[in-house]
């Protein structure tokens, strides 16, 4: 199994979710993260002071898929999350030893 982690722009979440559902990936876990990279942050000003907020809100999607589905999943995430502007984010893929469904104890791909 592969674990795919995608850091995307927050407003793209719904599209990515739909795209994954379309290819039969029906589970995922997301979290709110903040990213730092090429994309410039924004300025905020409070009375006399100005701050540059360098960390930008992003959504991290974690989705575990069987090996054979990984490439396809990456592809649809990329298509759905892309706006073409800096800061669209990254996809990281790593290997997973095992996955287990807590409710039933099923393991491996049938746990997904």
């Amino acid at each position, binding site marked *: 199994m592969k674990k795919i982690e995608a850091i995307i722009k927050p*407003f793209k979440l*719904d599209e990515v979710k739909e795209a994954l559902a379309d290819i039969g990936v029906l589970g995922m876990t997301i979290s709110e993260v903040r990213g730092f990279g090429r994309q410039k942050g924004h300025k905020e000003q409070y009375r006399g002071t100005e701050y540059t907020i360098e960390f930008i809100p992003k959504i991290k999607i974690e989705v575990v898929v069987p090996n054979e589905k990984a490439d396809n999943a990456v592809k649809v995430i990329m298509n759905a999350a892309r706006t073409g502007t800096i800061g669209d984010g990254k996809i990281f893929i790593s290997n997973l030893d095992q996955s287990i469904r807590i409710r039933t104890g099923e393991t491996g791909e049938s746990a997904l």
Partner: protein
Amino acid sequence: MSLWLKNHKTYLCGLLVIGLLGLAFLPVLAQEATEPPAEAPAAEVAPGEAPAPKIDTGDTAWVLTCSALVLAMTAPGLVLFYGGMVRRKNALGTMMHSFIILCLISVQWVLWGYSLAFGPDKGGLIGGLEWVGLNGVGLDPNPDYAGTIPHQAFMIFQAMFAVITPALIVGAFAERIKFSAFLLFTLLWATFVYDPLAHWVWAVGGWLRNLGALDFAGGTVVHISSGVSALVCAIVLGKRIGHGSEPMPPHNLPLTLIGASMLWFGWFGFNAGSAVASGALATSAFVVTNTATAAAALAWMFAEWAYRGKPTVLGAASGAVAGLVAITPASGFVGPISSIMIGIGAGVICYFAVVMKNSFGYDDALDVFAVHGIGGTWGAIATGLFANPAINSAGKGLFFGNPGQVMTQIMAVAATWILAIVGTFILLKIVDAIIGLRLTREDEQTGLDLSQHSESGYSF
């Protein structure tokens, strides 16, 4: 040059607003300096002396208290009520709308608004410029409007009405208007829609007043006008990006509920203060305001419970506001049992107006039209039904034997709708041409707070 203009439109608008405010400014400064000491309020601080002849301390205390209460309706009332309902990224920007209107119209009213609305009548349509800069609006009572309080007390009480009316509209264009465009539109709308309308209904010589239309505390002037204008705004500005496809839940409903509570609290000033005196009429208005509001909140909640399966908190809060809106024109004319009827009507009607909105497809983001436009219309007509001459000899409705009153009410409503629709539409088009109404797509996605104000509401 034209590029420069394009890039600096935002800033130009600021200058425009300042300019407009300044216009009436300089001429009147001199006047104040020479204002005759018609009466000597200073006498009041010297203990033991008698107050100026006709001023009643109880009435004045009441009207000043009520003025403060109506201010609290806008800020923090509306600030919270609307601010809690938008998405987090627009929280501050939406709150700013109500807050800065309080500032802008407070100054506009002193400079020229009060004169246009209540100044010496010109043909039943508008007040003259005689009272610009409050010239001649002093501390002696003006018996035309309120015989027992200083004229300026009446003026400042009315100022709070002039403030809250445009502040109600902001719910319609929430989450997508440019701040500069919003400022300019508000200033124009207050001047060209609100001020004339207030004159028609309340000023000595106003044509709707002469017609005999009943509007105790501003059902037409405040609620129908803002509600209908809101509808026009929602249509002209178009939908928010993602409307109908993305969820847009309120980001902080506790704030909204506190806002509704502050509205309720302040509305006692709005309605009971409209007696412009303390006593029986103020008491009666106070009682029916509370009762109708409570009934409307229950009615909305039960209607929603029956129709959708769950009683919601936002529903109860919205119902309370609908009840406050509907009782407003009737508050000095009806008794407590009638007020329950009016409240129940308001809760049920406004709830279904909100539900039906979705089938029409405009994006009145915070339901200003459904609550204020429809609720205000219901209230104006209900006043024609339930007005009881035993409460106030000035009003007699259908159920008390005067079927004509309903027709008069409908005429006043129609006139208000027409002025609001036409006026708002023209002003929006003008502002759109000068500055452009809507945010860029990117700014809208970023949210008002960062794009318009370079601030974040929360930093947790």
